[in-house]
């Protein structure tokens, strides 16, 4: 398994109206990249929601996936928390392995 390199996967679930803020936070934190996936339904400690038939984005959540080098994970997570502090959503961190370490 020596051809694999450890990276960190950061998953952020965040309200759609905050996406712009989050993206510029990630840009400023100079992450190597990110990908945004739609969420269509969910529940948290507060309310359940569903995107069906919604005309605004106010109730929607999005999932942001960001692979970073372990050396940068803390810093990126700090920046993200500074941006979405008291807003609904959460952040998780996990280990992943990649083949081409230079792109992260």
């Amino acid at each position, binding site marked *: 398994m020596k051809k694999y390199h450890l990276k960190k996967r950061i998953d952020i679930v965040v309200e759609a109206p905050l996406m712009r803020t989050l993206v510029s936070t990630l840009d400023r934190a100079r992450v190597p990249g990110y990908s945004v996936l739609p969420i269509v339904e969910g529940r948290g400690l507060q309310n*359940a929601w569903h995107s*069906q038939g919604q*005309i605004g984005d106010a*109730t929607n959540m999005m999932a942001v996936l960001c692979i970073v080098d372990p050396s940068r994970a803390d810093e990126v997570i700090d920046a993200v928390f500074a941006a979405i502090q008291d807003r609904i959503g959460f952040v998780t961190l996990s280990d992943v392995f990649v083949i081409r370490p230079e792109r992260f």
Partner: protein
Amino acid sequence: MLSLGMQNLLSPMVLFFVLGLLAVWARSDLSIPEAVAKFLALYLLLSIGFRGGAEVGHHGLTAPLLLAIAAGVALSFAMPFIAYALLRATTGLSAIDAAAIAGHYGSISAVTFAAVTGMLNQLAVPYDGYLVAVAAAMETPAIFAALLIANRERKSEHGSGAFFREVAFNGSIFILLGSFAIGAITGERGVTMLKPFILDPFAGVLCLFLLDMGLVAGRGLRQGWRYLSLAVTSFAVVMPLIGAAIAAAMASLLGLSAGSAAVLITLAASASYIAAPAAMRLALPAANPALALTLSLGVTFPFNLLVGIPLYIAMARQIAH
């Protein structure tokens, strides 16, 4: 007025809304994809804006237009203060939740606007095209009033400039004003060209859209019923009537026609559920977003659609006489 109420209740628009509510109640899996709902909303805003603009292009920019806009801005800015006072006096809501709700009720609902114009078209009661501009102007002042009330330094990464832009140029205002301008510029020529798409199917699209609104309101009520204490629910019915009364007085002062007065009254009586919820999530994250939305979409919108609009039209006829 009774027959007007019946005619409203038995209009296809209202029936499709009720069908949506019923579907949720029966736990049917009927649903409208998000992309389709957004398309229908975009279409309605574009159609309303364009039609209004084409009419203003015909009549020109007049003093009544500017006066009506000024009146609308004043209404939108003032109503949150009333709403806030009322909420704090009658309910146990926190200051921040009360401010957020107040912002929703000061702002307007473009969908309710579409519904009242659909109803007026059906009754063949004319109204002035410039009310589109009034509607657009009434969306945001309330949001800023709510922030003033909440009076908390938003220590957010949003500069207030960025926040202002997001609120002032939100999609629904932009498309309403943009197609208003295009309607005004292209006038008759534009109307002839776009009529089969932008004007003729309006009533039908509105029905489909209200079906969707029924589904969304029904689901919202199911999720949010526990917020609906008696005091809070009463607010969601009384506040529209207060807004209507103030707007009726203004309409009378401005000397609006019956149709135009009905539209202005309905705007004041309506509560936002596109622009304000998004803005409040950014500006007042500590407020519970489901609370304001349940009231505005689950209580006030159905109330306006089923009872309010015929009442406001009747009020407007009184005033205009």
